[in-house]
């Protein structure tokens, strides 16, 4: 498999180039990709007979026009960022974690279980337990794939995907048999105890406190990957496995650890969804988070620093999409196509940039 999947944003710039110029040059492909994606999608929306301007205005302004919209965007940002980081960290070693969905669901199931069984514990005890249950179960879930990868060389793309399907049934078993709540109307577990619910910040409408955790995780990931020996090993193992191995880095072990850490973040996302949003584990609660997490990770080109930023942009699009479907009538799926196009045009702009650079030198 080809190792360096994405261009490293830390690539040394020519010494003469100022940081501002470097940043602009880095942002140019993004601007181009965004504009092209919206132009192409605009043509499609217009061809379908909808009002393009109104559709786009709805997408972009929903998050900022109302406090509720902004709350929804931030609430969505939390799992998106965590899943995107959970995809990005293994990606740094050239491994694809397609199991974010399963890690989230298993994390949510475990968190809900703890929150139900120990419902009477005080918040100070229960809440950490709930979060821990999510993190650990996500790590174990990804750990299965990591073990099979390290020990038996089972492709991690396949094992993580297969485990997603197993996780559906794990949640289904919890939601319909063990902790079922017939009054919920959908397949879901009972509500967790009050002590398992995350406090709400700055409400109402307000965002749950999980956003602080997600921010901390994002900051920690950036620092660890860029400023520590472990982060260096991670990037070295991904950039050139052979050279890294010669220099004493145990590439396989790094890959296994990266996958487990990625799973832990997925599990954390699940626990925060339970404690902060739903108050229980619900079937289908993962919605499109995995797809979006992967898109975010790829658009951010594996940079932990940019993941939260891109995730915010995608959260705006997603919240705007349902609003656009309601008011303008354009199906919300249109936004998935816009996101795929952004990614495709970003890839194409790399090719163009590469050709231009070769012509100059």
């Amino acid at each position, binding site marked *: 498999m080809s190792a360096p999947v994405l261009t490293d944003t830390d690539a040394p710039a020519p010494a003469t180039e100022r940081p501002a110029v470097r940043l602009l040059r880095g942002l140019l492909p993004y601007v181009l990709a965004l504009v092209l994606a919206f132009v192409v999608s605009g043509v499609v929306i217009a061809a379908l007979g909808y009002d393009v301007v109104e559709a786009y205005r709805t997408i972009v302004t929903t998050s900022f026009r109302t406090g509720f919209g902004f709350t929804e965007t931030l609430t969505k940002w939390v799992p998106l960022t965590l899943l995107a980081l959970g995809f990005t960290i293994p990606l740094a070693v050239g491994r694809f974690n397609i199991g974010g969905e399963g890690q989230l669901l298993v994390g949510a199931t475990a968190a809900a279980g703890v929150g139900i069984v120990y419902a009477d514990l005080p918040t100070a005890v229960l809440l950490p337990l709930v979060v821990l249950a999510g993190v650990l179960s996500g790590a174990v879930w990804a750990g299965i794939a990591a073990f099979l990868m390290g020990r038996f060389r089972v492709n991690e793309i396949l094992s993580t995907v297969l*485990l997603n399907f197993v996780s559906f049934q794990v949640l289904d078993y919890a939601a319909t048999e063990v902790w079922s709540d017939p009054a919920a109307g959908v397949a879901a577990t009972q509500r967790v105890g009050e002590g398992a619910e995350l406090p709400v910040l700055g409400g109402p409408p307000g965002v749950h406190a999980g956003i602080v955790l997600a921010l901390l995780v994002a900051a920690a990931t950036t620092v660890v990957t860029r400023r520590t020996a472990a982060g260096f090993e991670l990037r070295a193992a991904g950039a050139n496995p052979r050279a890294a191995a010669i220099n004493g880095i145990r590439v396989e072990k790094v890959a296994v650890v990266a996958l487990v850490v990625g799973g832990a973040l997925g599990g954390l996302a699940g626990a925060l969804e339970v404690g902060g949003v739903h108050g229980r584990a619900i079937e289908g609660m993962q919605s499109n988070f995995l797809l979006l997490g992967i898109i975010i990770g790829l658009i951010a080109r594996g940079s932990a620093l940019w993941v939260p930023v891109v995730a915010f942009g995608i959260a705006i699009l997603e919240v705007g999409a349902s609003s656009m479907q309601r008011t303008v009538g354009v199906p919300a799926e*249109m936004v998935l196509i816009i996101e795929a196009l952004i990614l495709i045009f970003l890839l194409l702009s790399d090719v163009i940039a590469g050709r231009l650079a070769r012509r100059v030198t």
Partner: protein
Amino acid sequence: MTEFAALAQLTVVAMVPYLLASLGTMLGGLTGVFSVSQEGVMLLGAAIGFLVSYGTGSTTIGILLAAGTGAVFGAALGWATTVLRLDQFVVGLALFFAATGLAGLLYRIVIGQGATTPRVDTLPRVEIPLLSDIPVLGTALFSHNVLVYLAALLAVGAWFFLYRTRAGLDLRSVGENPKAADSLGIPVVRNRLWTATAGGALMAVAGAYLPLVYTGTYTDSIVGGRGWLAIALTFFGGWRPQFIVLGALFFAAMDVVALRAEVAGIDIPSQVLLVVPYVATLLVMVFAFRWARVPEFLGRNYDRESRTT
């Protein structure tokens, strides 16, 4: 015995989407183009196959248009990875998103958000004269819709082409050692392009099979992971059509057993049974990865001017 014949027939019906999608994956993979967009392309194939059949009343046109759309996605993957030399996984995932979004969008535009789900007629059975009268075997093998026969012919044809013809040997050499193939005058890019394109078409037909044979209706979850399982199956089958057929049979039997056991009311939580195919696949892969050969250049792009490859 009739119960067995019925189960065997169900298994054969259920194996076709696995077989088609996996043969498509294999075809591209043998020249080194590894697709991860099966799940999306199958869903798009299902949407187009269903919508066109619904609109025109002709299942054939539905299947053909689905195949054409799949071919476009396969060609896009081939072009982006051979001509532009973009990363295969990233392009594959991007196409997976695009196809998934497009499938949902098309269905919503044509059918709308209404509560009623429209149906189409499923493909009729074609009983092969004489052969279908054989007890047990006749019902199991020779009383099916045309796509079943087509898939079987395709598997045999693929085996013959790959292992008994010069062009097939050339094709496989591209995935094993493109540099050597190139130096012998075998067109690397052209082989990669056509196999990726044909592979995409097969995946889309595998998807179209689901509404047009299985259910008669389309839902967003109709593919249900079969695309990802097709990748696993291709590895399991060692990238050879003869073993892929066996693997598809195994996967399909898992599906049928899980369904049947639930209906028969066996006293195990249904979730345990529904998990069986995925866990079994994982276990099988633990062993399959030890013996299965993978094309040497799978997932890697070929650059004629590069010295390292």
